[in-house]
């Protein structure tokens, strides 16, 4: 399969088109500048099909334009009756056979890549992550490492990682356009896909299957780090934080957290217990809050006090502390505590909103 890939790449059109298509779109979000194995395979099929289809379009438009200019009724032709042509066998055979051939050009790489992307032969020797989609967040369990995290999935660069995906409620879909096409996350059967990233960095992930009120806010990130950083991250995540919070506010926050939040949110990364709410281990190093808010104290306090305004219909709305109400002061203390939860030195460089 590599051979035809090489040939396709040689086409000058390929690179021209790639430049044209990537003129817009955000880096590490767009599907048009792939930086992972699966996204690259998809991109090749996209380009091949666009090229073939462009040929068809040009032919149709050429005939269309010619016919329209040449045979438009002109003055003095009001009574002209053209010859009533029934058809033409040769022409009809031509425009049946040629499209079939063009389709074969698309079908062959389609079938090849379909099987390639469904390959599970290396699954047992690879990193396996159990992915659980829930309204409206993502839980990640590293199967062999016994580590649990949420929202930010850390993987090593240039390594195949298998994702075993299942939903905790309705159907979701796991999509990181720059790294891989999407795969649905169903409530009944586990779906398996693999991702492999070529470059370190933070990649935007989106839920792509309509899942309720905050479907559009169910973002997650894939953090691609070097193998050494990954190993260190795994080790740090598995080690419980020993020291007490530094400030008095954070200490009070910890007490409040343990009283009101801990029943759903674990802060222990080395767990295999099912997560009710997102596991908040290493929360201080998160790329974003709740997947979509900037990672700062102000946003976090607003989120704790009024999560409905940030993510309508999310599970936290049922939390007992919200029924009783929470003061801004208490929320600030909890925020101080959470922002101090830093288990590791492996910190992604990430600026979600560069324009602001």
């Amino acid at each position: 399969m590599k051979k035809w890939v090489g040939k396709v790449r040689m086409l000058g059109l390929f690179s021209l088109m790639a430049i044209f298509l990537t003129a817009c779109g955000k880096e590490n979000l767009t599907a048009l500048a792939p930086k992972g194995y699966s996204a690259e395979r998809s991109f090749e099929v996209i380009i091949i099909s666009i090229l073939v289809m462009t040929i068809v379009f040009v032919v149709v438009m050429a005939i269309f334009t010619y016919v329209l200019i040449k045979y438009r009724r002109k003055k003095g032709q009001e009574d002209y009756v053209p010859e009533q042509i029934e058809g033409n066998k040769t022409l009809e055979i031509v425009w049946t056979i040629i499209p079939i051939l063009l389709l074969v050009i698309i079908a062959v790489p389609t079938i090849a890549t379909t099987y390639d992307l469904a390959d599970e032969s290396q699954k047992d020797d690879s990193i396996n992550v159990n992915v659980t989609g829930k309204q409206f967040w993502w839980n990640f369990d590293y199967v062999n490492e016994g580590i649990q995290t949420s929202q930010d999935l850390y993987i090593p660069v240039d390594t195949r990682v298998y994702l075993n995906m299942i939903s905790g409620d309705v159907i979701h879909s796991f999509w990181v356009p720059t790294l891989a096409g999407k795969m649905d996350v169903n409530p009944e059967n586990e779906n398996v896909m693999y991702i492999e990233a070529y470059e370190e960095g933070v990649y935007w992930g989106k839920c792509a299957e309509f899942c309720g009120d905050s479907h559009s806010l169910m973002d997650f990130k894939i953090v691609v780090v070097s193998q050494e950083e990954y190993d260190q991250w795994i080790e740090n995540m598995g080690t419980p934080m020993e020291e007490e919070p530094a400030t008095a506010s954070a200490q009070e926050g910890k007490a409040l957290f343990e009283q009101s939040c801990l029943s759903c949110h674990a802060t222990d990364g080395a767990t295999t217990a099912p997560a009710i709410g997102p596991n908040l281990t290493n929360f201080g190093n998160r790329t974003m809050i709740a997947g979509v808010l900037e990672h700062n104290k102000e946003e976090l306090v607003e989120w704790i006090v009024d999560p409905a305004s940030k993510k309508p219909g999310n599970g936290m709305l049922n939390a007992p502390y919200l029924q009783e109400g929470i003061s801004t002061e208490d929320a600030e203390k909890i925020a101080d505590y959470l922002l101090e939860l830093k288990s590791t030195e492996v910190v992604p460089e990430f600026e979600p909103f560069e324009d602001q």
Partner: protein
Amino acid sequence: MSTLAASNKRSFWSVVWDYITTVDHKKIGVLYLIAGGFFFLLGGLEALAIRWQLVKPMNDFVSAGFYNELITMHGTTMIFLAAMPLIFAFMNAVIPLQIGARDVAFPFLNSLGLWLFVFGGIMLNVGWFTGGAADAGWTAYTPLSTISPGEGMDYYVIGLQISGAGTLMAGINFLVTIINMRAPGMTYMRLPLFTWTSFVASALILFAFPALTVGLFLMMFDRMFDSAFFDPAMGGNSIIWQHLFWIFGHPEVYILILPIFGVFSEVVSTFSRKRLFGYSAMVFATVLIAFLGFMVWAHHMFTVGMGAAANAIFAVATMTIAVPTGIKIFNWLFTMWRGSIQITTPMLYALGFIPTFTIGGMTGVMLAAATADYQYHDSYFVIAHFHYVIIGGTVFGLLAATHYWWPRMFNRMLDERLGKITFWIFFVGFHLTFMIQHFLGLWGMPRRYWVYLPDQGLDLGNAISTAGAFLMAIAVLILLYNIIKTAIKGEPCGDDPWDGRTLEWAVPIPAPHYNFKQVPLVRGLDPLWVEKMDGRKEMTPSEPLDDIHMPNNTVLPFVMTIGFFIAGFGFIYQKYDNALNALIFVGMGIALGAMLVRSLKDDLGYHIPKKELEKEARK
């Protein structure tokens, strides 16, 4: 005997009564046009609200819940309550005339189908006033749809069930009509293409709608009677819904587009003044598309996790549909080739359709490539694709049909200048709205997103798209103005205003309610054209003048529908209070009672005596 002229002399309520009880296919066509047009405007308003919400990042024009209701109802309304009924409008108005029949095979059923659609449509929209309309997407994927709170999804289930029954009846009716009611000499291979494609679309309805009916029944039991067909926790399976929905849903796409291929075939042929190029290939391609249309439903489900083998098979099966579709495009081009092309408003829509639909077809093949679809799926690329085929195909076709058959239906020509202005604004607005959405999808914008974050490279594209949507709205307003202006000021257009080729133009305008005094003899494809070329102005009759047997008007279909409508509320609300089961019994009682009356009371119709027909002829 014009309906318009006659209505001037009668009171408003007698006209209303006449239309409620009518079994005349021409009047039923008008009612489909009015109701479908109304829902088209409603769906359009919903679309504008959606686009306005997305005009800028993190907009707060509507809430998340309301937005989800808007997208669900926009899709449901446009597919089930606008596009299909508008197609039925023209099928009713034209097909009996095109095949030389005096009415459809089952006029009673025709009326029942219409009213079921109308009240099903109303039912779907009742949710807006009872705390929230349906909000799980028009595809209503389980388990999101089965756990959706409130009654919105209940109205979706019952509303679609009622209007779906109407659609099924209409489909059966047209199948029987086209098989049994053709005039002497109107062989299958002389059928006008609009009749052929409608015939095939009716067959698709017959086989596709039962899948939807079954799916809706299962969902109804899950929502209203605590069953668990789609609940994995109770041993059900949520993916089954997707299969049932798309086994219906994919043929549905061809139900929407095939009759429109017929419209364009008529329009291109008429305004090129040339018979359709490759008629038999066109018929063959239509049947082939319909057949393949049932083999490809799972291409909507490439990301569900069906495995490589299923994905590969459905990918290749889907690509093959491009071949018969391509045959059609080339046949239209070669119908114009060496013709005498006159650019009227309907022809303008046909000309706009060809490049637009070709793009829709191209992206269709691109979507068929499963691995590429992993990126396109459920993104704005898909939104762009299906609007290119459904607006670029179906809506352009409906607008062409509106301008083309308006004189046939209402004895007035729509203003050509305004018509062309409408076309250009609509055409530009359409491409502005949807071309950019292909890119938005690939830049990472999933569909059904209520908001998108700032600084994701999506702002400009969405703003452009919204601007285009408002251009389309302006075009629709101009069309409405054109219709109103024509109704008030228009002159009667007289017979055969377009120099037509097919039988519907052989009937005088306005048409007598029995259509043909004597059923015509068909002597070839494009029967009217054949006679014209032989120097005749009228069709040769195939029978001597005799009494004409016509069906009586009846209010029973309307009563039956009211019964089902009432029972529908009973099904929805019985879960709150057992006493409300009474509504089910009352409603079903009314409906079954009306059926009993229909079965026991002989209604043999009436005869128009020969003498009266002769008298009319002398006038």
